[in-house]
């Protein structure tokens, strides 16, 4: 590995990320899978870092899951997105930050489509006005929430209570980073670090003391892949994707996985249980799995939040061995009491 080669690519794919004043939109499935992650994100940016992040209860699904499952017309999904932009405009914001990778990818794709086909944008404006009597401005800046945490990573590090370091050996933890496909694979220039060697999560891990593992199947889909899972007959394909990734990362002995997508942590976490049941195989030490985290959860751990406040008891793979390795204090008896 020639690290300077990667650094060169990372320097080619840096994007402007505003410091403050964002209109924040949640993810449909993250609110169910990892409800603490979004709450924690807002706590960190608002309470710890005193930044202005606004959200509204009027925000709805972006339609991304339906769009990527081929069950919604493109103009309908564009009108839904136009309504979200109208909410941002009405609230007086210009920077739009999405919690969901698929939403981020969808917004990016729609803005690019409107750039190339302005007549379509005009039609969507008309659709929105006819259906809701709303008007919208396009965001001046579109970010994914992981972009914002990437931007704030050093500030978070400066307030850190723990580092991603093995407390016994003093060595950095080996961390697998998994980027959601819709983050930069469609539009490499819109993601920190591009599509081939994304830096958004790597930057966080480096700042927080860990070491990134570069394994052959790191670009591969987590296994969600929308139609791979949502169509029941395809679920074996979903599982085989996840299996392929774990087989590939196994020789590197990773301590943990960090993700920035709603589906990825869920599938990488849950399918480990299924692989164990089907194949009797686990990928961590002593019969344990490899714990999988959202980037907000990792930020929360570094900042010293109680692991159960972060919702880590919702994970399939037990996180306690990793917490012990870092030296994070927690109460075993409180695990399911919060």
């Amino acid at each position, binding site marked *: *590995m*020639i690290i300077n*080669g*990667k650094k*060169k*690519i990372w320097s080619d794919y840096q994007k402007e990320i505003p410091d403050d004043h964002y209109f924040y939109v949640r993810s449909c499935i993250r609110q169910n899978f990892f409800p603490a992650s979004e709450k924690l994100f807002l706590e960190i940016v608002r309470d710890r870092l005193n930044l202005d992040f606004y959200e509204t209860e009027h925000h709805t699904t972006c339609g991304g899951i339906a769009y990527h499952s081929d069950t919604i017309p493109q103009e309908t999904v564009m009108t839904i997105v136009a309504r979200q932009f109208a909410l941002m405009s009405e609230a007086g914001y210009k920077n739009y930050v999405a919690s969901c990778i698929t939403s981020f990818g969808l917004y990016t794709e729609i803005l690019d489509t409107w750039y190339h086909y302005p007549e379509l944008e005009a039609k969507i404006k008309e659709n929105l006005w006819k259906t809701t009597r709303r008007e919208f401005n396009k965001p001046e800046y579109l970010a994914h929430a992981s972009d914002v945490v990437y931007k704030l990573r050093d500030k978070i590090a400066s307030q850190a209570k723990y580092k991603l370091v093995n407390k016994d050996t003093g060595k950095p933890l080996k961390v697998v980073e998994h980027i959601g496909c819709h983050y930069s694979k469609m539009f490499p220039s819109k993601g920190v670090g*591009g*599509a*081939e*060697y994304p830096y958004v999560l790597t930057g966080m891990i480096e700042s927080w003391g860990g070491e990134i593992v*570069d*394994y*052959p*199947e*790191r*670009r591969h889909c987590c296994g969600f892949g929308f139609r791979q899972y949502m169509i029941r007959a395809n679920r074996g394909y979903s599982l085989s994707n996840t299996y392929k990734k774990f087989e*590939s990362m196994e*020789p*590197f002995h990773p301590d943990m996985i960090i993700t920035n997508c709603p589906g990825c942590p869920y599938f990488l976490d849950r399918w480990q249980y299924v692989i164990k049941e089907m194949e009797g195989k686990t990928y961590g030490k002593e019969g344990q799995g490899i714990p999988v985290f959202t980037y907000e959860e990792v930020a929360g751990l570094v900042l010293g939040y109680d692991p159960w406040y972060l919702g880590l008891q919702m994970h399939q793979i037990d996180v306690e061995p990793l917490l012990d390795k870092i030296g994070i204090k927690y109460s075993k008896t409180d695990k399911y009491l919060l």
Partner: protein
Amino acid sequence: MNKEVLIIGGGPAGLECASTLLMFGYKVFIVEKGSELGGHLRKWDRLFPESISASETLERLLIPSKKAIVFDETEVSSVKLKDGFFDIILSDNTELHVHSVVVATGFKLFPAEKKEEYGYGVYNRVITNADLEASFKNNSRDILQSKRVGFVHCVGSRDEKISNRHCSKVCCVTAVKQACEFKEANPDAEIYCFYMDLRMFGRGYEDLYLKAQNKYGIRFIRGRVSEVAENVDGELVIKAEDTLISRPLKVTLDLLVLMSGMSKNPDNDQLADMLGLDIAEDGFFVQHDPTINSIKSKIKGIFFAGTVTGPKTIPETLNEARSAALAVHKYLSE
């Protein structure tokens, strides 16, 4: 005969054009941006299809062009056309007053790091065709002892994604040549060539392709490489598609050679502005009469030679250089 000609570029085209013009008795100046004459040929070990020595070929080109006045590490700063003369100022402030100009600035090897998915500059065992030629030249054992080797054709050629739609013409046969030479250097090596289609247009090329299969057992896989990564042992894991059996495939290799194609010389735009010439969409110079008179530009007294107007083989380049010299002679004899 005291008429003076400036040749911009001291690669094979510039050298051969200079030799022919010197033979006619003209005074010839060569402006070369690099520190040595010879262009890409200087970096190559052997040439297809007969694997003749590149350094001996270069020597044969250099000897007859020795009487040319060479400005190395120099570029053209400005050009003014006045009364049938070209007033030239070079980057070292030398002023020339020439009757004709031959543009022979050649090509740039496509920067393989732009195809990020192949990992050039990121993974240690990913090299380019130029790097492999250097390894042949230096007998680099570390490279030549690799057991499992892949060649990726069309890197930076026929690729809309990086805005190079054109075929680079020489990469197919170069890959086959290099694969055969690798096998000669290391008979135990297993070699795979990943190609879109093989454009074996020249005399002897098909024979070389057959020899690669029959004598050396090189495996040709029709399909593009999608991504490259390193495993825990530092070996390369290659994902590709075999379009003949309609299946994806994954192979572990010790070495991957990227066949970087010919791209436009990045100086073309600036030079075209100075000379009043046009650049085509592919970045190469526009010929005034590409079918009948491919060396002619739209400005009287300015001619082209070699790959400045698109990818060419060495024999094609040399023939065009001689043709350009004849055209200069005809122009100056009118």
